[in-house]
């Protein structure tokens, strides 16, 4: 029987606020970076320079060192490594759900945990370098 009454709108258990806005915020920021900054990063760092199309000196040790361990370097790490990591984690987590793999909780810990771990690694690396 269909009743026209609305569902229970109390702040009961099933009305719990999702923590998703946090992950979605990181996902979106990471998505923008993935779309805007990452293509250029891949193009130069992983394609043109290794393939020798752009001068082999572009990533000389000293040059790379000074470029990375600097304020712009930190920004680079944030925008091209950390945020995209969370973007990827979010999509992988939902992808696992889409493929009905794992459990909600486990997937969350694994993906966001992984992204957090790698981000910390990157930042620690940066810290070591700059000191």
């Amino acid at each position, binding site marked *: 029987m269909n009743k026209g009454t609305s569902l229970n709108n109390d702040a009961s258990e099933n009305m719990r606020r999702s923590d998703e806005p946090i992950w979605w915020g990181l996902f979106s920021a990471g998505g923008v970076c993935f*779309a805007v900054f990452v293509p250029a990063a891949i193009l130069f760092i992983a394609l043109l320079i290794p393939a020798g199309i752009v001068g082999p000196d572009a990533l000389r040790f000293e040059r790379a060192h000074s470029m990375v361990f600097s304020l712009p370097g930190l920004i680079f790490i944030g925008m091209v490594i950390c945020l995209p990591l969370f973007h*990827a984690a979010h999509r992988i987590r939902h992808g696992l759900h889409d493929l009905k793999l794992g459990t909600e909780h486990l997937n969350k810990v694994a993906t966001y945990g992984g992204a957090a771990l790698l981000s910390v690694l990157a930042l620690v690396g940066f810290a070591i370098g700059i000191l």
Partner: protein
Amino acid sequence: MAKRTSYFPELKRNWWLKHPYFKKYMAREATVLPLVFFLLCLLAGLYSLLQGAESWQGWLTFMQSPLVIAVNALAFIASLFHAWTFFQLFPRVMPLRAGGRTLPPNLMVLGQWFGVVVVMVLAAWIFMRGL
């Protein structure tokens, strides 16, 4: 009430193979897989940079191996595909309004691509400066 017999097929894990639209969706979600590879490359680079010139050289050589270039090329394509899909979503998620009218979505998409190009040019300038 008489018992109602209904048939409720559960969605199978391979649901996304059943419609071209869903395949495209999965492709979009999968763009993060090569991205993760590229991000791991960067992390490896960061740590080899910390370990000195020799190890850095080793990383550069690693980046030159054809397989790595191939996967990163995939990552590059993935990043552009991602950008293409992501830019279309943006005006729908955050429609910008000016003078009582919503800004035409195409204009916003175009603006975002313009951003990508600017970043490319900027990257070219950074990497090739003084070469």
